């Protein structure tokens, strides 16, 4: 008989704190939901949970701890990205608060499901092992499949969810196969240990460009590329974004991207710095294609939700630049970009939600005509969001784009920086078209369309506008915060 040697693992609460607290809190909200159908209680509880989770990150901010056989790490980069994700989730809940009952989506499970998805994202951001990366990706994905299909049988929610689920499962297949190949070649799943193993290969003269290893890395990146809707793997994005309930679309377009990019950053920089020339070249091409494709196709869209979907593909391309730069500057620029993009995109979707009637989505560009007269404040907010997405100076969009392009330029990815600037100019066209439509065209409809700028939604929009202007005017506050964090990732 073999004797069972069992070592009780050490539970490190600092490392586990943020995701674990949010998971437990989500269960609590789920239980409360059984006893009350008052959604005000649920949203208050959810917001408190998000706030406490953020505070847990602040407690030990600055230290770098890893635990659970080095599967999870607590570092500045992780906490900062987690804060952005938590802020994005809070905004999502605010803009969804009145939308869900208006569209007959009363189930209280919405709140715990969003919290579960977010906790999966926090887990993914802190993951430093292929096993935890896989589980983080799947936790957030499964919650998102359900949220996408939340509006069945309305709209195209069910079709969107099934499409998302099939392509998500497809990506999961690539992820697992990639992990299998990397494990097979290096014998490790821990990111740092893979890097060590590869450096022993280098010192013993073993070739690093082993096709099986490269295929493994490629497969993992394909899977993460699906999640961030990078160019050749973007095909699900417009349909899923169009069919999902609008707040869920808003949430997916920012939070999933942020978490998956953070995982990609760790994967490339911690495990495979040795293969940097290879992935920089290959992913440079993908990034260029993503920026060009997203922006050019967005020009042709008259449906606003689809336009924002393509614009989110384009923005994934810009964020990819920060990941590829693989420098301290690049990572900090990525974090700032993620913050700016989160605030801006959620704000833009919030305006769409304010215009969305029960059962009759207002998504065509022409529906925005005369908004400047009907509801000038909403139109003003939308103007700020569009300027920020286009990257016009006093907004966060400009400051963050500038940082990304400069980081790419300094990392000798000058061709990408140039493509980025050119596509930004192209993108200004369709963002400005929205502004022109709102202010300069008169509504043709005889009956005035109602707007639903309720208290919670207005609060969300206000927070987003203030954030955008603050980051735009004084980007240094956040960039300074984002500076030193980088070392723990890039080592």
């Amino acid at each position, binding site marked *: 008989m073999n004797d069972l040697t069992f070592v009780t693992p050490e539970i490190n609460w600092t490392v586990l704190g943020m995701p674990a607290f949010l998971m437990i809190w989500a269960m609590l909200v789920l239980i409360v939901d059984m006893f009350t159908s008052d959604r005000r209680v649920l949203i208050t509880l959810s917001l408190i949970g998000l706030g406490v989770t953020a505070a847990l990150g602040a407690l030990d901010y600055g230290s770098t701890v890893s635990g659970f056989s080095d599967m999870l790490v607590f570092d500045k980069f992780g906490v900062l990205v987690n804060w952005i994700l938590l802020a994005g989730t809070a905004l999502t809940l605010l803009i969804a608060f009145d939308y869900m009952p208006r569209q007959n989506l009363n189930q209280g499970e919405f709140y715990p499901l969003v919290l579960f998805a977010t906790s999966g994202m926090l887990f993914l951001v802190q993951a430093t092992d292929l*096993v935890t990366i896989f589980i983080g990706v*799947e936790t957030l994905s499964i919650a998102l499949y359900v949220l996408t299909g939340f509006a069945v049988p309305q709209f195209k929610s*069910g079709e969107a969810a099934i499409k998302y*689920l*099939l392509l*998500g*499962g497809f990506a*999961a*297949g690539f992820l697992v196969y990639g992990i299998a190949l990397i*494990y097979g070649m290096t014998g490790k799943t821990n990111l740092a240990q893979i890097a060590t193993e590869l450096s022993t290969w280098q010192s013993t003269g073993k070739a690093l460009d082993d096709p099986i290893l490269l295929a493994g890395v490629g497969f993992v990146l394909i899977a993460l590329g699906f999640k961030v809707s990078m160019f050749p793997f973007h095909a699900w994005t417009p349909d899923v974004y169009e069919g999902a309930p609008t707040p869920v679309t808003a949430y997916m377009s920012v939070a999933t991207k942020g978490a998956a990019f953070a995982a990609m950053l760790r994967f490339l920089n911690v495990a495979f710095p040795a293969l940097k020339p290879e992935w920089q070249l290959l992913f440079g091409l993908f990034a260029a294609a993503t920026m060009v494709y997203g922006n050019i196709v967005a020009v042709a869209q008259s449906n606003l939700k689809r336009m924002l979907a393509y614009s989110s593909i384009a923005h994934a391309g810009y964020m990819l630049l920060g990941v590829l730069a693989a420098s301290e500057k690049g990572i900090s620029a990525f974090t700032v970009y993620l913050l700016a993009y989160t605030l801006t995109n959620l704000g833009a979707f919030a305006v769409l939600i304010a215009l969305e009637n029960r059962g009759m989505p207002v998504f065509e560009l022409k529906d925005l005509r005369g908004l400047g007269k009907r509801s000038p404040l909403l139109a003003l907010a939308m103007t700020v969001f569009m300027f920020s997405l286009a990257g016009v100076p006093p907004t966060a969009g400009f400051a963050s784009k500038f940082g990304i392009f400069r980081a790419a330029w300094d990392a000798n990815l000058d061709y990408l920086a140039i493509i980025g600037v050119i596509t930004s100019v192209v993108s200004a066209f369709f963002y400005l078209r929205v502004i022109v439509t709102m202010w300069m065209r008169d509504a043709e409809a005889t009956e005035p369309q109602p707007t639903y700028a309720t208290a919670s939604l207005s609060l969300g929009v206000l927070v987003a506008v203030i954030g955008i202007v603050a980051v735009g005017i004084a980007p240094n506050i956040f960039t300074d915060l984002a500076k030193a964090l980088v070392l723990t990732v890039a080592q």
Partner: protein
Amino acid sequence: MISTNAYVLLSAILFTIGVVGVLVRRNVIIMFMSVELMLNSANLALIAFSRARAESDGQIMTFFVIAVAAAEVAVGLALLVSIFRAKKTTNIDDVNTLKG
């Protein structure tokens, strides 16, 4: 003893069949089963590598993959059921979703 290469080769063939199945077939349920085939072939590769290294880590990863696959199947089939059920009652719903 059969070499690890043979097992990895087999798993790669199964994976390819799964990938082509997802992309080429249009029947949702068969696409879904092709995804399961992909995960299953990845598991085979993991277990083969696990034996090659004489460690159980690959097997434990497989364990997780099976659990995740089960969760995904449950959600996916629930979605299918609710979509199909909704299709039968769509007409009534369409009438009722008029503004107001």
